[in-house]
C-alpha cells in the first residue's frame, strides 16, 4: 500500500518545479490577467522567473503561493501553455513537507471540510453517510450501472442552507430518466479535490483516489454522474493521471453533459409548466473547473449554453455576464483557502456582473454557489439574485419524451 502511494506520487509530483516552467519566455501576460492581481500584488511571471533562475527556495519560503486562487486564468492566456496552477499544487506539497509551512490559519471554516476529507482517506475508516436526503420514489442501490457521485453536499447541509436540493434535484433527474436504480454509496469517500489543490497533501489525495477506485470497481459501475464541477474535473483529468485506465473503465459525466446527451438522443425535452408572460432574465456562472480546467476539446461550456438557448421559448431569457466561459471571473475562493476581504472583493465583482445580466444566476459548482451566496448576507444590493445549481434550475423543466409521442412527432 505504501509503495503504491509513492509510485503514484511520482505521477503527480515533480520534484524540480523548474522542469514545468522552462517554456516560459517571460512575456508577463499571466501577471496581467491574474484575477488575484486585481485585489492584491500578485505576479505569476515573477514567481516563475525566480524559480527558473534558481530561487525556488525563496519562493517557497515566502509562502505567497498559498494565496493563488488556482483559477487557471493564467494558463488560459499563456502563449506557452504553462500550467501555473499545477506549479502551485506541487509547490504547496513542498511548502508543507519541506518548508514546514502549515496553512491552517487560512483555511476557512476552521478546516473542518478538509479534515473530514483527510479522515476519510484513512484506509481503516469507512464513512457512514446519512441518506435521509434521498427523495421518496427514487430507487437507489449499492450496485449497478450508473453511479451518482454526491460529493460533500450532505456534509455542507449542517452549515449552509438548502444545499440538499442540489443532490435531490440531481438524483430525481437521474431516476426520471434511467430505468434501473441509481447507485448511491452510503460509504462514499471524498474525491480529494481540495486536498489535492489547496492543501498540498498529495499522498492523502492518492489514498482517497485508491479507495474510490476500489469502491467503484466493486460496485460494478460503468458510468459516474456528478453535479459537482470539482468532482468532475478530478475524475475526468486527475484520477487518470494516477490510474491510466480510469477513463476506459468509467464514463465520467457532469450532469450538464448527461442531460445534454439525453436531450440529443431525443429521450427528454424541456418544458415550463409555470411559464409567465414576462421573460425571466438569467445568466450562467462558469466554474473554473468546468471551463479553464478542462481539455480544449471538452465543450461543456458550449453545451450548457445550447441547452439554455432552448429556454428562450420557455419564459426565460439567457444573458451572458461580461466575463464568461473561459474568461469567467472566479467565485473568490478555491479549496476553502483564503476567505478574506480580497476574496470578498472578487466575489462582489462577480455578483455585480450577475446582477446586470439577470435575476437568476445558474452555476454548476456547489462551491461557487456557497461562496457567492455567502456574500449575499453581507451586501444588500446583490441579495436579490437567486443563485441556483444547474440541476435545481432544470428539475422542473425536464419532461420525458414517451416512445409513442416520439412516433407521433415523426409523423
Amino acid at each position, binding site marked *: 500500500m505504501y509503495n503504491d502511494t509513492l509510485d503514484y506520487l511520482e505521477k503527480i509530483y515533480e520534484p524540480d518545479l523548474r*522542469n514545468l516552467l*522552462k*517554456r*516560459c*519566455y*517571460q*512575456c*508577463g*501576460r499571466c*501577471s*496581467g*490577467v491574474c484575477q488575484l*492581481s486585481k485585489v492584491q500584488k500578485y*505576479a505569476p*511571471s*515573477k514567481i516563475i*522567473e*525566480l524559480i*527558473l*533562475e*534558481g530561487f525556488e527556495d525563496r519562493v517557497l519560503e515566502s509562502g505567497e503561493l498559498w494565496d493563488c486562487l488556482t483559477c487557471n486564468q493564467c494558463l*488560459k*492566456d*499563456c*502563449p*506557452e*501553455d504553462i500550467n501555473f496552477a499545477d506549479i502551485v499544487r506541487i509547490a504547496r506539497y513542498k511548502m508543507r513537507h519541506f518548508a514546514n509551512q502549515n496553512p491552517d490559519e487560512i483555511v476557512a471554516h476552521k478546516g473542518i471540510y478538509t479534515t473530514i476529507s483527510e479522515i476519510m482517506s484513512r484506509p481503516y475508516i469507512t464513512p457512514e453517510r446519512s441518506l435521509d436526503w434521498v427523495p421518496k420514489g427514487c430507487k437507489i442501490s449499492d450496485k449497478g450501472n450508473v453511479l451518482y457521485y454526491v460529493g460533500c453536499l450532505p456534509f455542507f447541509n449542517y452549515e449552509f442552507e438548502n444545499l440538499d436540493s442540489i443532490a435531490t434535484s440531481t438524483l430525481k433527474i437521474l431516476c426520471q430518466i434511467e430505468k434501473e436504480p441509481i447507485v448511491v454509496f452510503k460509504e462514499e469517500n471524498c474525491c480529494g479535490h481540495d486536498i489535492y489543490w489547496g492543501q498540498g497533501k498529495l499522498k492523502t489525495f492518492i489514498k482517497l483516489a485508491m479507495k474510490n477506485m476500489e469502491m467503484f470497481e466493486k460496485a460494478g459501475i460503468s458510468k459516474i454522474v456528478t453535479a459537482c464541477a470539482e468532482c468532475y474535473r478530478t475524475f475526468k483529468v486527475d484520477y487518470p493521471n494516477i490510474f491510466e485506465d480510469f477513463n476506459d473503465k468509467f464514463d465520467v459525466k457532469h450532469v450538464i453533459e448527461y442531460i445534454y446527451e439525453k436531450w440529443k438522443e431525443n429521450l427528454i425535452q424541456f418544458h415550463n409548466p409555470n411559464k409567465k408572460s414576462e421573460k425571466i432574465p438569467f445568466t450562467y456562472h462558469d466554474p473554473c473547473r468546468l471551463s479553464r480546467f478542462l481539455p480544449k476539446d471538452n465543450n461543456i461550456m458550449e453545451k450548457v449554453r445550447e441547452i439554455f438557448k432552448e429556454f428562450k421559448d420557455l419564459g426565460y431569457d439567457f444573458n451572458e455576464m461580461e466575463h464568461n466561459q473561459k*474568461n469567467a471571473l472566479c467565485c473568490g475562493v478555491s479549496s476553502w483557502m483564503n476567505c478574506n476581504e480580497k476574496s470578498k472583493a472578487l466575489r462582489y465583482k462577480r455578483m455585480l456582473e450577475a446582477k446586470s445580466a439577470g435575476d437568476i444566476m445558474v452555476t454548476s459548482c456547489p462551491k461557487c454557489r456557497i461562496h457567492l451566496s455567502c456574500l449575499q448576507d453581507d451586501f444588500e444590493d446583490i441579495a436579490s439574485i437567486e443563485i441556483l445549481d444547474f440541476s435545481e434550475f432544470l428539475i422542473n423543466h425536464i419532461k420525458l419524451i414517451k416512445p409513442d409521442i416520439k412516433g407521433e412527432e415523426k409523423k
Partner: protein
Amino acid sequence: MMEGSVLVIGAGIGGIQSALDLTELGFKVYLVDRTPSIGGRMAQLDKTFPTNDCSLCILAPKMVEVFRNPNIELMTYHEVQKLAGKPGDFTVTVLKKPRYVDEIKCKGCGDCAAKCPKIEVPNLFDMNLGKRKSVYIPFPQAVPPVYLIDPELCLKLTKGVCGVCAKVCQAEAIDFDQKPQEIELKVGAIVVATGFDMPAKNLSSRWGYHYENVVSALEYERILCASGPFGGHVLRPSDQKEPEKIAFIQCAGSRDLHEGVPYCSSVCCMYTAKEAIITKEHSDNSQCFVFRHDIRAFGKNFYEFTQRAQKEYGVKYFQTKISKIVEDPETNDLIIHYEDLKTGTFHDFQANLVVLATPLVPSTGSKDLAKILEIELDEYHFFKEKDYFNKSKSTKDGIYLCGFCQGPMDIPETVADASGVAGQVAAFLNSVKFDHIKEKLEVPELDIKATDEPRIGVLICHCGINIGKYVHVPLLAEYVRTLPNVVQCEDNLYSCSSDSQTRIKELIKDHKLNRFIVASCTPRTHEALFQETCQEAGLNKYLFEMVNIRDQCSCVHMDDAEAATQKAKDLIRMSVAKSRLLKPLKEELLKITPTSLIIGGGIGGMSAALNIAEQGFKTFLVEKESFLGGNLNYLNVLYPIEENASDFLNETIEKVNHNKNIQIFLNAKIGDIKGYVGNYIVSIVDSKNETHELSIGTIIVATGGKEYKPKDMFQYKKENKNVITQLELEQKLKEKGKSWLDDINRITTILCVNARQVEGITYCSNICCGNSIKNIGLLKKLKPELEIAVLYRDLQMAKKKYEEYYRERRKDAIFLRYDLDNIPIISKVNKDPEKYNIKFYDTNLQDFIEFNTDLIVLSTPMIPADNLEELAKMLKVPLDRNGFFLEAHVKLRPLDFATDGIFLCGCAQWPKNIQDTISQANGAAGRASRFLSAKEIKTSGIVAEVDPVNCIGCGKCESVCPYNAIDILESAKDYEEVSLIVRKSFVNSALCKGCGTCAATCPNGAISIMQYDFDQITAMIESYLLEL
C-alpha cells in the same frame, strides 16, 4: 519528353520575380493568380523598410514588365484544379473564372464603374476598409488593367435588371454570358508562390479586434497608403478622426500556442517600426507606442532602423506582452492592460487606435492546393520542403516553392528565393531551354533627323496624391502647354500604370511626336519602363526625358505647395529645352562568354557553382584557402536538423569535385579583373603562383564572413582559457569529445557581445542566437548535469522552425535577460581552475544578480571577411558601412550589384544561416545565368564620346575613369616635315557607364556624354535663368 514551360502559381512579388527570371533563362511562363490582378501582398503595402520606398512604386515597374513580357502568359482570376503527368511533363488543368468583361476589349477606362449603381461592398484590396462597386478594378495600377464584375452583387447577373455598364462601355467589353472555362497547360515544372494571409478575425477576443478602432497591420498599411481608403490620411475607422495616440501591438497571436501559431511571423517587428515612422511622417501630432516582447530585427540594417524609429522619430517602445485590450464605449478609445517588464508595474494605456501585428499564416487554399499538387504541408501548414538545405524544393520533384508559402520571410528573402527557384528550374529543364520562347518584336524605329522640328509630348503624373496633393498639377499642365515645341501635354493619376503606357503610345502616334517627357517620380525606378514604351511606339528611347517632380518637388516642399509647383514648372521647362536637342542613340550588341567565376568556395560559392554548372555552363570556383567549405569546416552540428556539418560538407564537396563543368582553384587569389559583363578577363594566381587568364561572362561574390574576436572584452584574453567565443566552443565540441568538460560544471553564454551597440558594432548579426541555443543542447547532451545560463537581450529565433527549437532548448538552460544600460561585469575569481564571477542587472527580475561560472562563451557578431576592400576595388563594386558588400537594392535586387554581370550571395551580403545562404546562392546563380543563357546583350547608348580633333592625349580621363573604360591609343601621324606619335583617348562603350567624370576632367572639352552633352546642359541652364 520535357516541356520548356513553367507554371507559376501566385503572382505576388515571389511569383513575379520567378516568372521574370524564368523567361530570361529561356522558359515560357504561365503566371496564375486567383485574384484579378498580379502584385499580391506587396501591392497592398504602403512603404517598404528600411528604405521607405513606396511599395507599389517599386513593384509597379515589375508588374508592367510582366504584362509586357511576350513569354509570360498572364492568367489572373484563374485557379489551378488538377495535375497529371510527371516531373518535366506535367499537364495542369486551370479554371478561368468569368470576369464578365472581355479582357482583350477592356481598356480599363472605368466608365462602367462610374455608371454602375451605387451598391457597394467592402474592397478586399483595401482590407475591406474601402468600398467598391459591382464592376470594379482591384486597384488603379492593377495588372492586367481590366475590370471585372462581381456576380454576387451585379443586378444584371442576380436579378436580370440594370446592365448599364454594357450600355456605357464604348469598347463593348461587357459580356454577361461568360462561363467558367477549363484550360489545359503542358508544363515542365511548377513554382508555388502562394504567399500568406493575415486572418485577424480568428484571434481570441483578448486582442480586441472586434472593436472598430483595432486594426490589423495590413489594414493599417491601407490606411497609410495614399491610394488607400482614407487617401493617405491617418484616420481611425470609428469616427474618421486623426488618432493622436497609436499603439502597435507585437506578437498579437504569433508565438502563441493558444492562438495556434507557435512560430514567429518574422516580419512584424520591422514593419511595425516602419509603420510607426511613416505615421510620424504623416502627422506631427501623432504619438506612436510599440508594445513588444523581443525586438527581432535581424536583417541587413534592421536593428539600426528600429533604433532610428526610437531616437529620431520618438517612437516609444514598451517591453511587454499585453494582457488584453478593451474599448472605452464613450470615446471608442482602447484601453490596453500591460505590465512594463522593465519596471514590473502594471498600467492601463489609453490609445485612440490600435494596430495589431497579427500572425501571418499560409494563404487560405494552401491545403487544397497541396492536395491537388500532391505535395506535403508541414506542421504549421506551410508547404514542406524536401530538404532543409534546399527550401525551394517541395516534396515532389518538379514542383518548387518560393516565398512565404514555405515559411515566414520578408521581401528580399522572397526575391532571392524566387531567383533561386528560377535557377533550379533552369537546371532541371536545361535540355528544353528556349523551346517555347518568343523573341521580343522589334518595332521599326521612326526616322528622326536632326533637322526635324521637335514635337514634344509631356505627361504629368499625380502619383495618387503623392504629387497631386502638393503640386498643382492642372496648373502645371496648363503652363507646360505654353512652352515652345510642346505639342501635347496631359496629366493622369498614375503614369506608370499599363493603361498609361498605351496612352503614351497613342499620343506619340496621333500627334507625330518625336520627343517625349514624363514628369513623375524617379528615373531610377521608372525610366526604363517609359523608354520601353517609347520604343514600342517606334521612338528611339533616348528621345525620352524624365523629370522627377515627386522627390524634388512634392516630397521636399510638402509645406509649400506654391513653391513646389513653381519648381516643377522650372524643371519641366528645363527638360523641354533639353529635349529639343536630344538625338537618337544607338545600342551595341555584346557577346557573352558563357562562363561564370565564383569567388569563395564556402557553402554559398559551392551551391552557386553547382547550380550554374548544372545549367551546362563552365564555372570556375576560386578559394583562398587550401580546402573548400569555408566556415562550415569549423562547425560541428547544424541546427535545427541536427545534422553533422562535416557530412553535409563532404557531400557537397563531392558533388562539386565530380561536376565536369566546375574547375576549382584552391590556395588561389584573384590577380586582376578586366573587362565588363560577358567579357571579363580574370587572372587567377594559383597555389604554385602560376597565373591563369580566364574569359568570364559573369561573376558571383561569395566571400562569406568571419567571427569577431572580442579582444579584451568580458575577460577574453590570451591567459584566460575558459573565456571563449562561440566558434571556439564549436571547435571544442567538434574535436575534443567531452573530457574537456570534466572540470566544468557551470557554463554561461553571453549574447550580443559587441553587437547591437550604440558604438562599436551596431548591427544584429542574425545567426548568433540560434547557434548559441544549438550549442546549449549539445553541451547538455554531453554532460546532462551541466548548469548553463544564457544572458540575452532579445532572441532572434524568427525562422520557421526556430521558435520551436528555442522552446525545446529552454529546458536546457536558464535564460537571463540584460540590457545595454547594465552590461554584465565579469571578474576572474580563481586562477586554477579558472572561475569567473558575473554580475549584471536581470531585467526579468528587476534585480542585480551575481553568480560564479567555470566557462564563459561569448557570442560575437559575424563580420565581413578580410581584405574585401581590395576585391571590391577590383570588381568596382561598393561596400556598405559595416563592410559587407552593398547590393543594388535592398528590397528587390538583393543579389545583384549595381554593376551588370556581378552578383553576390551569403554572408558576403549579410550574416545569415546556411539555409538562407544556399537559397541566395541558388538565386545569385539564377541571376548570373540569365546573362549566360542570353548569349548576347545590348549596351547602353549613354556613353562618353571623344572628339578626336580636340583631344590632346593628356590621359587625365583615363586616370579618373572608375570603370577602366578609357584607353589612350597611340598612332603615328605624318606631317609635311615631321612625323610624330599622337595619343588619343578612346572610350570602350561596353564598359562606359556614362558617369561623366571624364567629361568633367577633360581640360580641352573634348569629351561629351551622349544625352548629357554641354549644349543640352547649357540649354537647360539658360532655360532656367530665362524666367527668373
